[in-house]
């Protein structure tokens, strides 16, 4: 846990007027920084299972000796942003790998859009997520998370990912609140552009 997160309360109550929950999904491979990003902008400490990856389990008292189990669990985590008196945005960090395909339908139902977080050291981890989003027509942007100065420029990444030209691709630092905020704004701007384009098309 870094210091910024421990300052966040796990649960602060929402405004009594809160009435509309919105969803944005941050999707990416393991270790790409999903949780970090959710944590950076969330007003609550993200509730997550990724911190409890290995559990020394139930010690069972049976005749002689104890039984201990080790369980590794992976799930999504989420954070929360109160946008105004009514709207509350929930950010879900979801593993992007193909083996978690069954998460998608329920998690992505009703979502505004998605942020694909990529790490150029493990770019292929994002392929399945991008394929899936393209396939379902879910609006998304791609954000490259840079914990270190990147080697490749964004156009090389765009080329490697074979992104369609209208999909925004930006750099970000998932640890940084403003940077994470900018990623969300980029996504909503993209949605706005898509929406107005559709509204203008009869």
């Amino acid at each position, binding site marked *: 846990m870094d210091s910024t997160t421990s300052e966040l309360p796990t*649960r602060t109550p929402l405004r009594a007027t809160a009435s509309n929950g919105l969803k944005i999904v941050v999707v990416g491979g393991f270790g790409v920084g999903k949780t970090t990003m959710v944590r950076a902008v969330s007003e609550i400490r993200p509730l997550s299972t*990724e911190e409890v990856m290995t559990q020394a389990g139930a010690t*069972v*008292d049976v005749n002689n000796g104890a039984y201990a189990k080790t369980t590794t669990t992976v799930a999504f985590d989420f954070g929360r942003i109160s946008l105004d008196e009514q709207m509350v945005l929930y950010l879900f960090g979801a593993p992007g790998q193909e*083996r978690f395909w*069954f998460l998608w339908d329920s998690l992505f139902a009703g979502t505004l859009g998605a942020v694909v977080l990529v790490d150029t050291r493990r770019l*292929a981890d994002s392929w399945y997520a991008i394929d899936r989003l393209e396939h379902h027509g879910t609006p998304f942007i791609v954000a490259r998370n840079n914990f270190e100065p990147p080697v490749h420029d964004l156009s*090389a990444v765009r080329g490697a990912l074979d992104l369609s030209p209208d999909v925004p691709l930006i750099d970000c630092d998932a640890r940084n609140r403003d940077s994470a905020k900018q990623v969300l704004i980029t996504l909503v701007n993209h949605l706005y552009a898509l929406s107005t384009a559709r509204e203008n098309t009869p």
Partner: protein
Amino acid sequence: MPEQNPLPHPDRRKPVARPLLAALVTAVLVGGLWFWVTTTTPHDARLPVAIAGGVTGLLLCFAVFLAVYRADAVHTSEVSVRRAWEDTQQIRGAAEHMRGELARLLDQVVPALVQKLREASSAESALAEIGQPPDELHQRILRTLATEIAVGERRRAAAMAACANAAGRVQALSTSMLADLREMENRSSEDMLGDLMKVDHSTAQAGRLADSIAVLTGARSGRRWTKPIKMESILRGAMGRIGAYQRVRVHSTSTTAIAGYAAEDVMHALAELMDNATKFSAPSEEVHVYVEDLHNGTVITIEDGGLGMKPQALARAELAVSPTEPLDLTMLSGTRLGLAVVGVLSRKHHLHVFFRPSSRGGIGVVMRIPNQLITQPRLEPLPEAIPQRRPVAVGAPAAVAALEAPTLTATDSRTDGRTDTAPGEPLELPQRTRGQTLQSAQPARHVAEPSLTERPRGDAGSRFGAFQQSRTRRSIEAVEPAEPSWPEHNDA
């Protein structure tokens, strides 16, 4: 018996000696008198007198002989009668002695021997410890007995130990399975949850059976709770281990908890009683559980609407849960272990269990849990002000149980948000081809095998996913155990 009559009578060898002597003395006396009479009698009368006197004398002598002879004979038989009586007394004494010895053998020596053997002494050392009886036959009896009992005891102890050991293993297995299942349930989709719950329920019941065998074989309970368990959880914990838990209705406002060390046993005992109540009432009937906190403990009443118990069955049931009667394994009937288990657990924790007619028509079983097992539950943090609660699984439509996937642990939990352990950025970026990853992933779902992405072998996430996929095509058949008909309570 010659050895008891060693001295022969001297008179017996010459039974006629004394009469002859008497006759001789008579003859001398009578002869002298006859001679005197004959010589003093005048001549003319001398002959007849001599003849008559002689004959009389002879007769007299003979009579004396006979008399003495008869008298002797009477005397002799009197003696032998007395001797025979003495012999009898002696034999009776010996028999009494033997009887005493035998009684001591049976009442003291044999129980002591059995006790020693039950305490796992060997036949030899047990015999040595109790000391040898003086009689050689008794020694032989004891030796045979000791050998036979020792073999029987060893056999019994080995069988019990094997059962206890096996039960312990099943307990450990079911406990870990229950923990795993809960993890999977926490992360399952709605479609999966029902199936997982079914397996969970079966596992809980199997665990209870293992617990029962452990209890009856004298092994320890399967689990120790390290915190007090609140009454609601005690009752649900009990319900979860029986088949027809959905027929059980709980009416409780109790806010107490059971001390951790006793919680498992109380749950187990309640589960057995609830199981009986559901089994011995019609499948359409509900079983009602009432909880009352009283000054001398918490009273839990389980009422069914069955046919009740006949006096004989009631007597057996009461004996099984009696606070004083120890467990008698010979009373077990294979399929009906419930009340015997309740009995053992009740005696262990001083639970008081008794039966009474139920207002619902069947049986009301009452369990009083003594105050020393009652405590208060740990305070749960108020939801409004939770300080840094343990992050929890969110579960649900979107989650994964990736069991035993250590590589995932290593990469994700350590490197998420950090760069130090990750590989450096490659100079050549890999090139994606649109749709290919998705497409190549599709067949993998049908064959339930990992596809091309670098996935650890045996990764449970993919297995889990594949399982989900397969179950959409072929729903898991519900394995419902045949509901037994509902005889009267005759569990004992």
